[in-house]
């Protein structure tokens, strides 16, 4: 078994209203940022997991995202990165 860090992005589907993103976008000109056309706010979820290999780690992360992290009515997800981590932290952070 090896340890992997996986980054999953969960984002609102196109067409679903994003009041938080819109609020950021509206605030930008007043702060002197002019060229920003649009902002969408989603979640970045970092999972640390054990798996025999990278493809398995990716599949697990995708399953977690599909089952739990994203609500299919409003959201899509994408695994953005999978990286191998050094093994066995002596007294790992407990969730």
């Amino acid at each position, binding site marked *: 078994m090896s340890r992997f860090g996986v980054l999953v992005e969960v984002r609102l589907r196109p067409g679903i209203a994003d009041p938080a993103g819109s609020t950021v976008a509206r605030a930008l000109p007043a702060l002197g940022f002019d060229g920003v056309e649009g902002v969408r706010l989603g979640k970045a979820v970092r999972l640390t997991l054990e798996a025999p290999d990278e493809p398995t780690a990716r599949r697990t992360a995708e399953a977690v995202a599909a089952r739990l992290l994203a609500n299919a009515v409003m959201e899509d997800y994408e695994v953005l990165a999978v990286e191998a981590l050094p093994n066995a*932290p*002596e*007294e*790992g*952070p*407990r969730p």
Partner: protein
Amino acid sequence: MSSDTLPLHRALGLTDDEAQAVEGALGRPPNPLELAMFSVMWSEHCSYKSSRLHLRRLPTSGPAVLVGPGENAGVVDVGDGLAVAVRIESHNHPSAVEPTQGAATGIGGILRDVFTMGARPLALLDPIYVGPLEDPRSRWHLDGIVRGISAYGNAVGVPTVGGELVSAPGYARNLLVNVMCIGVLPTERLALARAEGPGNLVVLLGAATGRDGIGGVSVLASAGFAAEPGAGDEKRPSVQVGDPYEEKRLMEACLELLERRLLVALCDLGGAGLTCAASETAARGGVGIDLDVRAVPRREPGMTPAEVMTSESQERMLAVVEPARLADLQEVCDRWEVRASVIGRVTPPVEGRGRLRVLDGPGGAVLADVPAAALADEAPCYRRPARPPARPRPEDDPGEVPALDPGAAAALVASWLADPAWAYQQYDHQLLGNTVVGPGGDAAVLRLAAPGVPWRGKGLAVSADGNPRWCAHDPRVGTTLLVAEATLNVACGGGRPICLVNCLNLGNPEHPEVAWQLEQVVDGLAEACRALDLPVVGGNVSLYNEAGGQDIDPTPVVAVLGLLDRLRPDLPRVRLVPGARLLLLGRPRDELGGSRFAQAAGRSGGPLPAFDPVAHRRLLDLLVSLVHEPGLLDGLHDVADGGLALALAELALAGGVGAVVRGLPDQRALFSEAPSRVVVCTREPAAVRAAAEAAGVPVSDLGETGGDRLLVPGLLDLDLESAHRAWRGALPRWLD
């Protein structure tokens, strides 16, 4: 100066003399862990070393008081086998560093103070003081504070039913967030944080321990902020994140453990973390505690024993349990998904003194060995040099404030209007189904009931009040006026005042003017409470509220609880109905010292109006009986900040009904903030008059309601529609 060139005790916030005293208490030099434990326990925040001496002057007992100051919360008997627990705290410095999390963890802490007594939290209040909203930083402060309270209080399931929202220049760099909680308990469930029975187990409940808020009480809460905005940045690692879901489970588990009588003692972990909870619990019970620091569940690897012992990680409680009950405790905790870890046991006192020992693993090396009472009770106690401010007695007698034309007077009043709904609509103020009068009125009124405590007809009224303008003007008299206002608010809600808690927010006590303010505030509080037979059952002192050497104005906040023997659904509110009479109960007055009106005219002189407790008590009694008389009053509001003018404006706005007010000689009578006066709106003026006369309370006719203006001929002419816009928009304009 970098901290590694400092002697350790100074880096930890102890003075050289205090370090000497630690050595004296131990009879040997402390090791670094012991020094760290003393530094947090002897901090201003935990030890009250600058205020203890003064607080002794407060009246704290009364026939109904079951627990006075000193425990986690005060407890008062309210009959029917029930008691009410109440507590107020400041969370000023953490909220200045991170408003959302600071306010949220303040709520978490005050809830634990109340449920640790065996009480189910019923309601929260949140007095807030921030800088001018023109300043984006103050807007960020206020927005974040309200979000934090909203996120935590709503999720944990306790309604926020009142508070205060003051915006003034003095708080721009040092804001104030006070939090208050009221709970109810069957009297026999009352639990104290008193360890007993050598051999009993010490169990840590709740969240894992991380490097949160290390030194929060000594370095953050017991020192002021630097001059530069952002110069507090190096304190930032102290930020703690609140977890209301953990708190909710912890609360349910603790209340069930107490209900099933599975515990010997229970104590929350707040400032100074495990060191505080363990030393206070042991000291109160006259026993010792051995703690195995390795048994404490950690959130992060590599934490040192000192970090574990002083961490302020949130959502943790310390329980003492007999070994035979451990399995039952575990079962309750498992069901609520609350982690429970045995981390130590109670030990017998040695030569009459319980010792708090920190062990490295079971039976391992002794890392610290300190008399519990030395930590908890024997901190130094200071009488700081005090001196009244060298303020020249201003010549600008407010008696000579030039009169304004009615339109200008209306504009002035409109500029004071701010509907706090922007804040309280972000709070769930209806949870538990108890809220009869929610935020926005004089006092919040609640049913005295809770899950497991069926309603028997009684109610509670509560109001929290502060006024830095009065208290800067004259801290002693100003504080008496606050007690007058809070009791009057409660009586307007139909409550007979039964007790008071206070939070004294002041500047740096090492400044003689601040030390003087502290003395004066305590004197004023003691004087007023004594005169009203109102026991002070708890409080909190927050010092070092300064930024860049500038102290805040003295900001005592007092909160009064009142009891209603029976509740009616149609309690009179702050509002007018058309076609009714307006009466003033209480002696007409016209002193302007310390008023908003005088301040607006640049007059800062003159004495504050005096408080007459005898007349005030008569008024309180009268109000309580009038409010409970069905159909007698249609509306009412006390006169305080902003005087009769603001009281009338708020009454008119709330009901959308105007009035024509006569019989006031001049604008002094309209704008005086003198205490012990209430405006009532009634369609039974003769009956009200008769009751007032029988009670020996002066009563005068103010005029009649109706129309769409608040008109005081020759003195004030306020158009309700535009005033309504100003009132509703005052906060959203800046914050939405």
